[in-house]
């Protein structure tokens, strides 16, 4: 039987505020356990929450970036459950009146098509603390530094139909929240966490199947694996005539296994009710407009501008615009080099390959955009050949000199483009290879002729000590051999 895969995501995004959502405790990462857990965070009797304005501003910025309606009046609710890393015995969250209403994100797929994924809503809530299960003689250790860190939980509609689409959405969202500056984007520290809802239905059917939720995936790779794993698990059950139980599952990426965490039958009954400690938060036009003013250029806007301004194709424009830092590097390069297509090729080719090989991010690169741009300018004006340019790039990367011109000079990589000098070299080389010249001239097939040109290029490059402009050599050769 053929199945359709239906995927919806819930994404927890830690907001990059300096302090917690309801207290003035620092949210800085890496502090000693419980040194950033105040009386409010510990739920000491008599304490009251006071919401952080910046958390609302960031949530509104997110809403504007995903074309969503902003909740003008948002209300906090209590979601009640017991767990030691939740000192109050409830999580303060938003149920019926979230800060961000319906919106959408368009994702680009590998085959060049794009797809719209609808956002159901996004709400503000507080993170829980951390439980450490090891090393305490049968006890669990609790660190409440993270308790009260502001989160937005983003809930999508079930609009994705493959692991590829879900991962494309997750990456797009990651790039979006990082580039608008509301989240540090560091997935290794749990700044973004993904829960994946998956169900299968017979191909073409309108009726959704029973779904499972796989929780707390914190890398794109694990997310892709977890989806593949869960789809296969459900398919096996359904094809054996079984039924899917609605449950929450945990995925172990190291072992590619999943296990049930709790089923819906024993699921928590959260007994939500409006939080009496907090009044409704009213967001006015002025607040929304001030949040809009803080939004930088969004990746989609940047992509459109790159296509328009630099004449890039869709694919290059997307790769260069997703990450604001790569986009800035590229634009710095273009400002020196002028030839945008060539600059794009170098940023996405040699430069990106080198970053990957050394596991560096663009800000850790030893060269600047304008250094690469100067090199691109020298390729564009024929000062240096593309093979020579690779040597210059290498030297720039290794810090041998701080600009392309100095390296070209020092290593003698300057290309000879003086036509008179090149013509003379061609004459001399051809004079020394009469048999090959005759063979070329007797050959009737232009394709074969073209191949034979290569036989002359080697001696020519040698004669010019590698500095002859290959393009000009080629032109002169064709002219002289043809005549």
């Amino acid at each position: 039987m053929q199945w359709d895969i239906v995927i919806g995501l819930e994404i927890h995004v830690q907001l990059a505020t300096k302090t917690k959502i309801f207290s003035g405790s620092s949210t800085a990462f890496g502090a000693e356990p419980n040194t950033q857990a105040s009386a409010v965070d510990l739920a000491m009797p008599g304490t009251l929450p006071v919401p952080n304005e910046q958390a609302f501003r960031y949530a509104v910025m997110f809403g504007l970036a995903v074309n969503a309606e902003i909740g003008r009046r948002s209300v906090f609710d209590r979601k009640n459950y017991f767990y030691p890393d939740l000192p109050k015995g409830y999580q303060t969250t938003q149920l019926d009146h979230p800060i961000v209403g319906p919106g959408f994100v368009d994702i680009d797929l590998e085959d060049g098509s794009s797809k719209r994924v609808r956002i159901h809503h996004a709400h503000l809530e507080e993170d829980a603390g951390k439980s450490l299960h090891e090393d305490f003689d049968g006890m669990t250790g609790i660190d409440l530094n993270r308790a009260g860190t502001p989160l937005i939980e983003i809930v999508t509609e079930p609009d994705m139909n493959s692991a590829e689409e879900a991962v494309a959405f997750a990456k797009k969202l990651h790039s979006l929240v990082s580039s608008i500056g509301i989240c540090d984007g560091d997935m290794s520290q749990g700044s973004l966490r993904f829960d994946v809802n998956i169900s299968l239905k017979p191909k073409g059917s309108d009726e959704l199947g029973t779904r499972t939720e796989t929780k707390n995936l914190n890398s794109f790779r694990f997310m892709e694996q977890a989806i593949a794993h869960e789809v296969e698990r459900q398919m096996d059950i359904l094809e054996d005539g079984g039924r899917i139980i609605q449950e929450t599952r945990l995925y172990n990426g190291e072992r590619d296994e999943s296990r049930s965490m709790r089923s819906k039958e024993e699921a928590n009954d959260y007994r939500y009710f409006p939080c009496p400690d907090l009044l409704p938060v009213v967001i006015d036009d002025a607040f929304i407009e001030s949040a809009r003013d803080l939004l930088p250029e969004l990746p989609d806007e940047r992509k459109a501008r790159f296509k328009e301004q630099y004449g890039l194709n869709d694919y290059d424009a997307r790769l260069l615009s997703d990450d604001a830092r790569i986009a800035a590097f590229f634009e710095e390069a273009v400002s020196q080099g002028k030839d945008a297509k060539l600059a794009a090729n170098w940023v996405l080719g040699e430069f990106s390959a080198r970053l990957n090989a050394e596991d560096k991010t663009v800000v850790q690169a030893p060269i600047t955009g304008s250094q690469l741009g100067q090199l691109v300018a020298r390729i564009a004006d024929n000062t240096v050949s593309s093979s020579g340019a690779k040597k210059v790039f290498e030297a720039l990367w290794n810090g041998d000199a701080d600009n392309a011109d100095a390296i070209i000079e020092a290593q003698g990589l300057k290309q000879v483009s003086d036509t008179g000098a090149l013509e003379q070299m061609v004459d001399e080389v051809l004079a020394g290879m009469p048999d090959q010249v005759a063979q070329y001239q007797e050959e009737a097939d232009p394709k074969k002729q073209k191949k034979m040109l290569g036989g002359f290029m080697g001696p020519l490059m040698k004669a010019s000590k590698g500095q002859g402009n290959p393009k000009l050599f080629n032109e002169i050769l064709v002219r002289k051999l043809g005549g």
Partner: protein
Amino acid sequence: MTISREDIEKVAVLARIRLDEEQILALENDLGNILSLVDELSAADTDNVEPLAHPLDAVQRLRADEVTETNQREAFQAIAPATESGLYLVPRVIE
């Protein structure tokens, strides 16, 4: 409206409260009375009334994003039953 014994037992589990037989019987009666009162309120026509999120007709004030709390771990942990390496220790929880 009445509340069933099962409802009381379920809520007791959710609230982590252990009830004995006598308490369950008393609660059936007390909670039943409260629910009857709610039933009376339910008779009021509220079709054109916005649900109330808070009894005060006021708007929440927000706080600037500035660190105002200092580290008082020592004071807080002085009253904790068990701590180690700065962590609060609790009976082992396995998810």
